């Protein structure tokens, strides 16, 4: 796509989800979202009423996270939480999938969990966070299909609190699985316009990031050189490189690392770059 600063900004959910977030930070977030005309602010439920008030005369939407960041609560609680934020004026909700149920192959529970949020969301769009760092590729595909069947609007890669953030590999896989009519949101670890452009090229149409201002501002550099986007070592953006046994289930970690053994870019896998 012919990406401009304005188009890029309109793909960004300007995000602050840290537990220590103050009202002043929410005010700053909303002001920046207004200045840059971001798609939405993505915040914890407790801040929704204030953000709705601040953004009432703008085109910036308010997005609240549900069952965040673990996704391990019940469908009933997620439903209740959704009703609450939608009642407070949220236009979008980003829910965390039941990761454990997915890994248990308890797909009925996974689907019911998502449907409970969709049913409670009214006109609000629902994005489902898969937390890809806990999943193998087959599990990611299955999760995408369940989200689609349940009627979610978007699938989303990560919370930013899990084992890894968004990678082009995962976004590509998710886009291929859900097709062109459903949204794919990349989130977690997106800090530069290069990250953003790569993920958009891979199929993302929404980006969740706390670095929205820097991404949009620095994107102005893109017009002065094509060299920013010269390919880096392939390992830099590969989820297998980011795999971390301390943060992932052992078998998931092993699955990621075994991919390296048969990877055609194996010779680039050096660790002093």
């Amino acid at each position, binding site marked *: 796509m012919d990406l401009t600063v304005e188009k890029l900004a309109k793909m960004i959910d300007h995000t602050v989800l840290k537990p220590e977030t103050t009202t002043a930070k929410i005010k700053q977030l909303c002001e920046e979202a207004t200045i840059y005309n971001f798609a939405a602010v993505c915040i914890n439920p407790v801040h929704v009423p204030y953000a709705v008030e601040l953004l009432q005369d703008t085109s910036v939407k308010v997005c609240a996270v549900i069952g965040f960041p673990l996704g391990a609560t019940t469908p009933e609680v997620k439903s209740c939480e959704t009703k609450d934020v939608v009642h407070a004026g949220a236009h979008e909700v980003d829910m965390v999938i039941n990761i454990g149920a997915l890994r248990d192959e308890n797909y009925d529970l996974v689907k019911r969990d998502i449907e409970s949020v969709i049913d409670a969301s009214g006109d609000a769009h629902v994005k489902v966070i898969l937390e890809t760092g806990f999943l193998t590729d087959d599990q990611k595909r299955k999760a995408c299909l369940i989200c689609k069947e349940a009627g979610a609007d978007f699938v989303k890669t990560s919370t930013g609190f899990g084992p890894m953030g968004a990678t082009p590999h995962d976004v590509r896989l998710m886009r291929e699985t859900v097709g062109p009519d459903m949204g794919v949101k990349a989130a977690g670890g997106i800090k530069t316009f290069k990250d953003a452009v790569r993920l958009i090229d891979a199929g993302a149409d929404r980006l969740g990031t706390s670095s929205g201002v820097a991404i949009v*501002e620095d994107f102005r550099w893109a017009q002065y*050189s*094509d060299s920013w986007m010269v390919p*880096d070592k392939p390992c830099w953006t590969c989820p297998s490189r980011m795999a971390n046994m301390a943060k992932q289930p052992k078998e998931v970690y092993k699955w990621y690392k075994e991919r390296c053994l048969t990877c055609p870019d194996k010779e680039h896998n050096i660790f002093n770059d």
Partner: protein
Amino acid sequence: MSKSSLYADAPILHVYLHDKSIRRESLPPDLYEHYLGGRGLGVKLLFDNLAPGTDALSPDNLLVFAVGPSTGTSVPTAGRFVVITKSPTTGTIFDSHAGGYFGAQLRRAGFAAVVLHGKSDNPVYLWINDDEVEVRDASKLWGRDVFTTSDELLEATDAKAQVACIGPAGENLGLMAAIMTDKHRAAGRGGVGAVMGSKNLKAIVAKGSGEVGVHDQERLKAAVERARRLIKKNAVTDKSLPMYGTPVLVSVANELGMLPTHNFQEGTFNDAEGVSGEKLLERFSAGTYHCHGCPIGCGRISLIKGEKVGGPEYESLWALGPQCGINDLEWIAIANDRCNHLGLDTISTGSTIGAAMELVEKGKLDAPLKFGDTTGVLDLIDDIAYLRGLGAEMSEGSMRLAERYGAPELAMQVKGLELPAYDPRGAQGHALGYATSNRGGCHLRSYLIGPEVLGSPVLVDRDRPEGKADLVKLYQDLSAAMDCMVVCRFTNFAWTVDDYAEMVSAGTGFELSGHDLLRLGARIYNLERLFNLREGFTAEDDTLPQRFFKPLPEGGSRNRVVHLNQMLKEYYELRGWDKKGRPTEDTLSKLDIPVS
């Protein structure tokens, strides 16, 4: 000066030291439009007025102190000044910059630049007090160090004035002599202090009470508000630099195996943690230093043995520390302070000491010098400034020292200027920047450490030569344009090309796009190149010490070499230069540089 004077209306002050006469020249509109101010103004003046082959330490050399259209305005960091001259160290055209407060005072006094001609019979200083300009006797100051000189000059003139002066190193024409301001800020590189000393000019003292005008106050206000907001949003300018100062780079460079150690024989210093920015903060921090109009405040003030001293900043800390294998942070701060008192460039001084240590290590030089050993080094620094014994030989820099002892390959320099604190094997683009710098071994012509190491604005693969020529050209041209505004390089972390262009447009009334600003920078870069070619430099000078074509044995940059030829070919093509590194007529024509 008249109230709210515009830069366009600010005269160039010509001072003829041989007869102490003074002339004011209006800023030529054509020069202003094509070269803006600061570095560009100085480069154009030197190109047009300095005969090829002029001895840099002869009275015929010109010494230009320039400020720019942003100086003294609300543009953040715009209180700096630039010194342009032919360098006695490199033989190239040279621009050397300093922060502090002197630049803003010079601009508020109403001047765009001061051009020093000739040589005075006796030591003098120049006292600029708004419109009043006076060449005064400085015989009693000759021989004084930088700190005493500064104090005595402020007492003799006005406590609110600002001083730019030389110390003993400059008086004795040492090729590593700096021009110092506010005692510990330095226009350090290229031996510009020796040029000042060769003119018997001890100092310039400036005080201005006027207001600095801009073309469109409201537009500039909006641009500056945005610029300040961007500085606050950037992690480097709002967190790393204010918290740790430039020494934050010690740990970063060491981790990547790019912290030159033992005269660039290694890229990892085992005791890096002990000389890191974090350790400086924990052990010696006594405050920070902000230059005029700077919201960043990267300058360090350290408490050493009960006394507050300036710095040490990253480059100085490295040169007097890991480059010489020295891990004593307190000693490094003392050595840095000693250099400031004497008016010595800390990078070249430390690097030359490191080269001497390797000469000793390799059996080429017999001297009581050893990597890691501080014994006698403070005395040696004194000897360098006063040209005594081995210090006299070292005062000429590492290139001449190593040649003298039959091992030129041990001087880590480009075009005679010592390289700064990044091993080029660890960052290909930065290596190309060193090789093609118009003023010799310099990290500030094209600071590709930003994208290659710090990820600013985005991280690019530091090992790949592909695409680096393009980025080096971009950064060289932008840096040249920034040096015409005269603003700090660190703004580059937070602002884009468009921000600089907007501030120039608002300040001057020239409607410049980002691309126009880069073209202006390219014009300056090419004119500097023409100057150097005229002085006899060739494509063969666009190179690096042989050491960098052999791999580092260990550390985060192990097994890397610089792929210079590949990048250089592409760079010449992008610049519109022929295979011999000469700008083609077509290139000069496109840049509005008259073809002679």
